[in-house]
C-alpha cells in the first residue's frame, strides 16, 4: 500500500477506454525452411546436424528406458527398474529447440517428464562450454566419481566424454546409484545438474511454476546473468502454484516501484510442453477450457505474457521462438509464455495402456515424427545424406548402450547402503551450515542502520520488563518481542546482500503485526516488498530463490494459511536438500504468525503439521531474548526453518534473561529447550505462548499447594534435545506437556511418547498432555474453554499425577471423559 500510487476515483470510475483490449496471440507463425535458415546464416551445417544428434539422443534414451520397463532389458542385457519412468518420446524437437539458445547461466526447471529437457540442456552446455571448464565441472563433481565411471574403456575428445558423463550420470540417477547426479536420491522425476544450469525437475505437477519465478527473482535481485525457463506440461496449467507463480511474476511493482537497474520484468519464461494429455485427460476438449494454453497469458498482464503458440514438431520453429523470447527477457520485458505443441507417444507411464486414445491417433502423429521429418528436411536441403544420419544414430546407440551397461553394474555404480550405514540419509536431511552472508555484494540499503527511525526508537527502550528499581516498564517503553525479531532481521539485511523478505503486506504497514516497521525506510523495494495474496507463490518463489543461492524470509501472515501453501511447505521446502544429494541448500526462514482471537480460521497452532514432515526445522520462541537469538541462528543457517510467532506475545517484554535482551548479536542454537523456572516437584514442558499460562499455574501450585514446578520452554520443536527434559523428569518424576495445538495428533504426544520411553523408570505418573480441545477454535470470548488454561494444569495434576488437597477441578481431565471424547471423535 504505497502512498506514491494514488488510486484516482475519477480515472477509476470514469476511464477513457470502455473495453479491455487483449493483444493478439500468434499461433504457428514460423514458416522458414532449412534452406532459408542456412541462407540467412542462422545455422551452420554442423549446428543442424547437432540438432538431429541431440534429438536422437533423447529418443534412444527414452527408448532404452521404455524397453527396460516393458521388456526387462535393453539390447539383450537384462535389468529391472522398479522406479518411475515418465517418458517423452515424441517431444524431442520441443526439448532441443528449448535448450538451443540457452547457455549455462540460463536455468531450466522441469516436471516429472523432463528427461528430454535435461539431456537437451546438458548436451547444449557440453557444446558451448570450453573444454577445460567442462573438464573442471566433471572432475569436481562428486570428486570425480561419476566421470571416472563414464571414462571406463573410453578414448575420445572431452566433449564426447561430456556426453558420456551426462548420459551415465542421468541413468545412474534414474537407477538410484550413488554415482548419479543426485546420489540416486532424486530419481527419474527429480534428476538435475546445476553446473549445466539444469535445476530441479518436480514430481508434483506444476511445482516448478512458482519455484522458477523465485529463481528469476534471485537472478534479478542479485544481478546475475541469465534467464529462467520453467518447462511445464499443458496439464500443469490448471495447478494453483503455476497460476500463483504467474501472478507473482506479473506484479506491476517491478515496473512501477522498483527503481534503477531493478526496474523491469522478471527474466522468466513459462514454457508449456503442450503434449495434449494430462494423465489420460485431454487438456484441449476435455479437462481444460483454454483451447490453447497460450491463451492464459492474456489473463495475467496487458502484454499477455508475450504468449505464442509454436510448432514443437519443428525444432527450428522452437529455436526461433526462444531466440526472440530470450532477447525480450534480457531487455527486462518479461515474463513470457510459450505454448509448444508436441505429442507424447508413450503413455503417462509404462503402466498406462493408452486406453483413452486410438491407435490411429498415435500412428498419425508418428507419421509426423519430429526426428524423421527433420532428417528428411536435412537431406532435402543437402545438409546430410541418409548414411550420415544413420551414422549419427549408430554412434548414439553405442554410447547409450555403453552407459546403460555401466549404470546397471553394481560394482561400478553401487547404491547407498542405508541398512549398513543407517544414519547416512539422516545426516543429509539438513545442511547445518553457519554462513554470515550468501553474497559477496555490498547490501543495497537506503540509510546507515543507526539512522533508522525504528533502530533509534528501540535504542531508547528498556531491554528488560522491569527497570533498575524493579518497577514494571510501561508497554510503550519496553523492548518487546517484535523488537527482538526486528533486530535480528535488520542486522542480517545489513550483512547479507542476498537477503530479501516479502509477504502479504510487509512494507509500509510494517507487516500486519508491525515487526518490520522501520524496514521500509532501510530497504529498497527489491529487498522488501508486498506480494500478491498467494501463499503458494510466496513460499514457492522463496524456494526457487534459495535454491539458486539466496537467503529469504517469506511470511505467512496467519498460521492457518499454511494450508494454502501446503505443497510448498510440506513437499518442496523440506525435500530438496536431501533429494539433491545435498547439492542444494535451502536457507529459507518462513515467518508464520500464530493467531488468537479471530476464531476457527485464524487461531490455529499448526506447528505439529510442520514437525511431522522430515526436513523442516521448527522454531517457536515466546520471549524477546529467544526470538532474537533463534532468528539470528535461523538466518545464520542454511536450512529451511519454520519460525512461528504468537500474536498474543508481540508486545511482551523480556522476563527471564537477566540483564535484558543484549543489544549486540548473539545466537541461540536451534534445538535447545530452556528452563524458564526451576522447580523440583513437577515439570511443565510447553510449546509456544502456553508458557505464560504454565507459569501462572506454577504460581498457583506454589501458593496453594506448596509444590514447585519446573517450567521448560521447548523453544524449538525440530530439532529437539531431550537431555534437559530427561534430567528434569529424573528429578521431578512428573511432567505435563502443554501447547495450544489441538491435542489429537499433536507434537505434544510425540514429546510425551519419547519422554515415557526415555524416562520410564523415573516416572511417578504417565506424562500428561494438555493441548487444545479437538474443536474449531471458538470466538475470542469463548477461548478459555478451548486453549489450555492455568487451572487445567492443576486439574491434570490432581486427576492424573497426585491428588491435591480439597481440590475442586475446573476442567474434566478424567480417563472416562477422555474415552467418551475419543469415541465421539472430539
Amino acid at each position, binding site marked *: 500500500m504505497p502512498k506514491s500510487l494514488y488510486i484516482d476515483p475519477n480515472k477509476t470510475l470514469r476511464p477513457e477506454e470502455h473495453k479491455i483490449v487483449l493483444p493478439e496471440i500468434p499461433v504457428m507463425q514460423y514458416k522458414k525452411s532449412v534452406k532459408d535458415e542456412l541462407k540467412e546464416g542462422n545455422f551452420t551445417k554442423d549446428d543442424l546436424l547437432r540438432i538431429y544428434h541431440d534429438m536422437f539422443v533423447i529418443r534412444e534414451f527414452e527408448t532404452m528406458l521404455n524397453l527396460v520397463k516393458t521388456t526387462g532389458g535393453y539390447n539383450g542385457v537384462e535389468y529391472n527398474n522398479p522406479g518411475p519412468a515418465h517418458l517423452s518420446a515424441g517431444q524431442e524437437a520441443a526439448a532441443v529447440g528449448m535448450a538451443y539458445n540457452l547457455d549455462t547461466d540460463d536455468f531450466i526447471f522441469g516436471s516429472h517428464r523432463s528427461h528430454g529437457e535435461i539431456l537437451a540442456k546438458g548436451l547444449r552446455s557440453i557444446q558451448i562450454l570450453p573444454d577445460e571448464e567442462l573438464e573442471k565441472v566433471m572432475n569436481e563433481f562428486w570428486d570425480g566419481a561419476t566421470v571416472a565411471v563414464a571414462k571406463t574403456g573410453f578414448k575420445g575428445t572431452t566433449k564426447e566424454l561430456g556426453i558420456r558423463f551426462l548420459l551415465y550420470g542421468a541413468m545412474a540417477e534414474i537407477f538410484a546409484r550413488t554415482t548419479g547426479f543426485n546420489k540416486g536420491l532424486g530419481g527419474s522425476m527429480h534428476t538435475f545438474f546445476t553446473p549445466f544450469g539444469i535445476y530441479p525437475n518436480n514430481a508434483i505437477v506444476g511445482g516448478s511454476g512458482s519455484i522458477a519465478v523465485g529463481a528469476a527473482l534471485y537472478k534479478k535481485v542479485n544481478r546475475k546473468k541469465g534467464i529462467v525457463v520453467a518447462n511445464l506440461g499443458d496439464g500443469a496449467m490448471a495447478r494453483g502454484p503455476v497460476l500463483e507463480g504467474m501472478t507473482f511474476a506479473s506484479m506491476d511493482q517491478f515496473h512501477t516501484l522498483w527503481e534503477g537497474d531493478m526496474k523491469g520484468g522478471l527474466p522468466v519464461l513459462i514454457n508449456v510442453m503442450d503434449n495434449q494429455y494430462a494423465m489420460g485427460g485431454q487438456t484441449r476438449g476435455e479437462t481444460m477450457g483454454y483451447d490453447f494454453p497460450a491463451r492464459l497469458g492474456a489473463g495475467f498482464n496487458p502484454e499477455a505474457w508475450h504468449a505464442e503458440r509454436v510448432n514443437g514438431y519443428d525444432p527450428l520453429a522452437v529455436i526461433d521462438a526462444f531466440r526472440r523470447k530470450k532477447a525480450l527477457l534480457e531487455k527486462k520485458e518479461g515474463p513470457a509464455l510459450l505454448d509448444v505443441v508436441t505429442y507424447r507417444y508413450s503413455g503417462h507411464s509404462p503402466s498406462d495402456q493408452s486406453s483413452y486414445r486410438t491407435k490411429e491417433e498415435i500412428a498419425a502423429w508418428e507419421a509426423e515424427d519430429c526426428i524423421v521429418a527433420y532428417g528428411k528436411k536435412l537431406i532435402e536441403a543437402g545438409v546430410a545424406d541418409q548414411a550420415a544420419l544413420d551414422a549419427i544414430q549408430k554412434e548414439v546407440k553405442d554410447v547409450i548402450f555403453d552407459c546403460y551397461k555401466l549404470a546397471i553394474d553394481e560394482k561400478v555404480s553401487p547404491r547407498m547402503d542405508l541398512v549398513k550405514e543407517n544414519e547416512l540419509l539422516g545426516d543429509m536431511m539438513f545442511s547445518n551450515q553457519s554462513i554470515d552472508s550468501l553474497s559477496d555484494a555490498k547490501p543495497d540499503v537506503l540509510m546507515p542502520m543507526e539512522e533508522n527511525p525504528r533502530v533509534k526508537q528501540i535504542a531508547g527502550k528498556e531491554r528488560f520488563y522491569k527497570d533498575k528499581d524493579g518497577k514494571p516498564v510501561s508497554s*510503550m517503553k519496553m523492548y518487546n518481542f517484535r523488537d527482538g525479531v526486528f533486530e535480528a532481521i535488520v542486522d542480517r539485511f545489513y550483512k547479507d546482500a542476498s537477503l530479501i523478505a516479502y509477504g502479504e503486506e510487509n512494507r509500509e504497514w510494517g507487516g500486519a503485526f508491525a515487526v518490520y516497521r522501520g524496514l521500509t525506510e532501510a530497504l529498497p523495494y527489491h529487498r522488501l516488498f508486498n506480494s500478491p495474496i498467494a501463499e503458494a507463490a510466496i513460499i514457492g518463489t522463496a524456494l526457487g530463490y534459495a535454491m539458486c543461492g539466496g537467503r529469504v524470509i517469506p511470511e505467512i501472515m496467519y498460521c492457518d494459511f499454511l494450508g494454502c501453501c501446503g505443497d510448498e511447505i510440506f513437499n518442496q521446502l523440506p525435500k530438496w536438500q536431501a533429494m539433491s544429494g545435498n547439492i542444494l541448500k535451502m536457507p529459507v526462514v518462513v515467518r508464520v504468525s500464530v493467531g488468537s482471537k479471530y476464531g476457527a480460521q485464524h487461531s490455529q497452532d499448526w506447528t505439529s503439521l510442520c514437525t511431522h514432515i522430515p526436513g523442516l526445522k521448527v522454531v517457536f520462541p515466546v520471549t524477546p531474548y529467544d526470538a532474537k537469538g533463534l532468528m539470528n541462528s535461523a538466518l545464520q543457517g542454511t536450512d529451511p526453518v519454520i519460525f512461528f510467532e504468537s500474536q498474543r506475545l508481540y508486545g511482551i517484554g523480556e522476563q527471564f534473561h537477566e540483564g535484558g535482551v543484549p543489544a549486540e548479536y548473539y545466537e541461540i542454537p536451534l534445538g535447545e529447550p530452556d528452563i524458564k523456572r526451576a522447580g523440583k516437584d513437577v515439570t511443565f514442558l510447553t510449546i509456544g505462548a502456553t508458557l505464560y499460562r504454565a507459569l501462572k499455574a506454577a504460581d498457583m501450585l506454589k501458593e496453594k499447594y506448596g*509444590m514447585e514446578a519446573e517450567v521448560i520452554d521447548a523453544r524449538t520443536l525440530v530439532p529437539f534435545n531431550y537431555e534437559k527434559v530427561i534430567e528434569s523428569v529424573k528429578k521431578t*518424576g512428573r511432567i505435563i506437556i502443554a501447547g495450544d495445538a489441538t491435542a489429537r495428533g499433536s507434537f505434544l504426544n510425540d514429546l510425551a511418547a519419547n519422554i515415557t520411553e526415555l524416562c*520410564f*523408570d523415573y516416572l*511417578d*505418573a504417565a506424562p500428561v498432555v494438555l493441548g487444545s480441545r479437538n474443536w474449531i477454535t471458538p470466538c475470542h470470548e469463548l477461548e478459555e474453554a478451548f486453549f489450555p488454561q492455568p487451572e487445567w494444569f492443576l486439574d491434570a495434576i490432581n486427576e492424573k*499425577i497426585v491428588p491435591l488437597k480439597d481440590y475442586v477441578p475446573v476442567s474434566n481431565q478424567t480417563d472416562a471423559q477422555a474415552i467418551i471424547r475419543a469415541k465421539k471423535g472430539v
Partner: protein
Amino acid sequence: MANVVIMPKQGQSVESCIVTEFKKKVGDKVAVGDILFSYETDKASFDEESKFEGTVLACFFQDNDEIPVLTNVMVIGNEGESFAEFAPDGAAAAAPAAAPAAAEAPKADAAAPAAVETPAAGPVVAGAPVSPRARKLAEEKGVDTAQVAGSGPHGRIIERDVIAAAGAPKSGLAKAMAAAGGFEAPARGTGLDGMVKGSDLKQWQPTHTDIAGEGEEFTVEKMSNMRKLIAKSMYNSLQNTAQLTHMLGADARRVQALRKKAKKALEEGRIDANITINDFVCYAVIKALQKFPKVNSHCLGDAMRIFKTVNLGCAVDTERGLMVPCVKNAENLNIAGLSKSLKKVADDCKKGSINPDLLASEAASFTVSNLGGFGVEWFTPIINVPQSAILGVGTIVPRPKDLGGGVYAFVPYMGLSLTYDHRAIDGGEATRFLKQVAVEIENLEVEF
C-alpha cells in the same frame, strides 16, 4: 466554548501512545487541518490534525510523554476561555503513571508456600497400581509395595508413598527379603542406628478392606504367602504338564499284618519307631521306583533327570497348609529308619523348623500323598513339578476277591492313584509301575 483534543485510540489493542513532537505550543493559532502533534503506537506513527480553529489554550503533556488513549491532550478555544476543567486526572503530570500492562506482569517472587505436599493416609489396597518411579525406589529401599498405601490418582502408589513407607535404612539382606514381599519391617531395626536387619523382619499378615461387599455375607482374608505359593505351584502344575491318573487296588492284608507286627514290636521295645501303614507303603514304593528309574525322575520339557537315588517327597498337612518335605537317599534306609525320617520331616514342617531346601519341589524325585487316614478311597493328586509322577494312597476298604475255584471273599484293598506326566511316561509304563507298587505292597518283606 473551548474544544478538547484527545489522544485518539488507534486500534483496539492500543492502550497508550507516545507523542513524538508537539507541533503547536500554548498560545499558537491553529486552523482546521493544522498538525497539532505527531504520535506513535508501537506499530505505526500518525499526525493529529486539528478539527478546530482557535488558539492553543493548554497542553497537558510534553514531547515523548506516553499518554493513555482517550486522554485530554490539548485545549483549543478563544483566548481567555477557561480550560483548567479539562486537565486530565492528576493534572499535567499525568502520563506514565498509567502503565497498564505492567500491572499484569507475573509475580517474580511468590510468597512462601502455605502447605507442603504430603501424602494423605489411605488404605492399603491389594493389587494397587505402582508408578515406575515408586517401583524403582521400592526396590532400592527394600519396600514391599504390597504393604504401601497409595496416595496417587486412583490409589496409585507413587514415589512419596514409598518414601513415607521406607522407614529406617535396611541391611542388604533385609532389602532383598522385603522387596521380594511377604515380610513386615519395623520402623527401626536392631542394627546400628536403627538399621533394619533380616532378623528384624516378620511374616506379614495383610489386612484388607477393599474387597467390595465384605460384611454379612462373607469376610475377607488375604491369602497368606504360603497359600499363595501353594496356589502358584498347583496351578503351574496343571497348566504346564500333561497329567492323568491311573487307579488300581492293592491287597492290603500283608501290610495290615506287618502293621500289627510292628505295633507289637514297638510295645515290646524291640523297635523305637511307630511304623505306620504309610511307612510300609512308602517302603514298597521305594522298591518299585528302583525297578522303574524312569518314574523316579523330573520332566524338564526337553530333557529328563533320571535319579540314581530315591528322594521321596511326602505330603504333609499342616496348619499353614500343604507342605511336601523330602527324605533324601531313602533307598538306603531300613523300614524303621524310613519311618523315623518321614516322621521327623513331618514334625519339622508342623513346627516350622524344616530346612527349606527339603521343601523345594526339585528336592524330591517322587512324591507320595496319603489321604487314607481320612477315608478317601481314590483321588487325583497333582504332580509336584518338575517331578514326573505322584502316588496318591487311599483308605483300605473290603472288596470281593476271586480266591480261585469259584470262591469269592471280601479282602481289604488299598486304593492306589498314580498321577503321571504323560510327557515323561507312557500309559503302559505307568501301569506297570503302579502294578509293581501293588506287588511290592502285597509281598513286602521287612526285618524288625
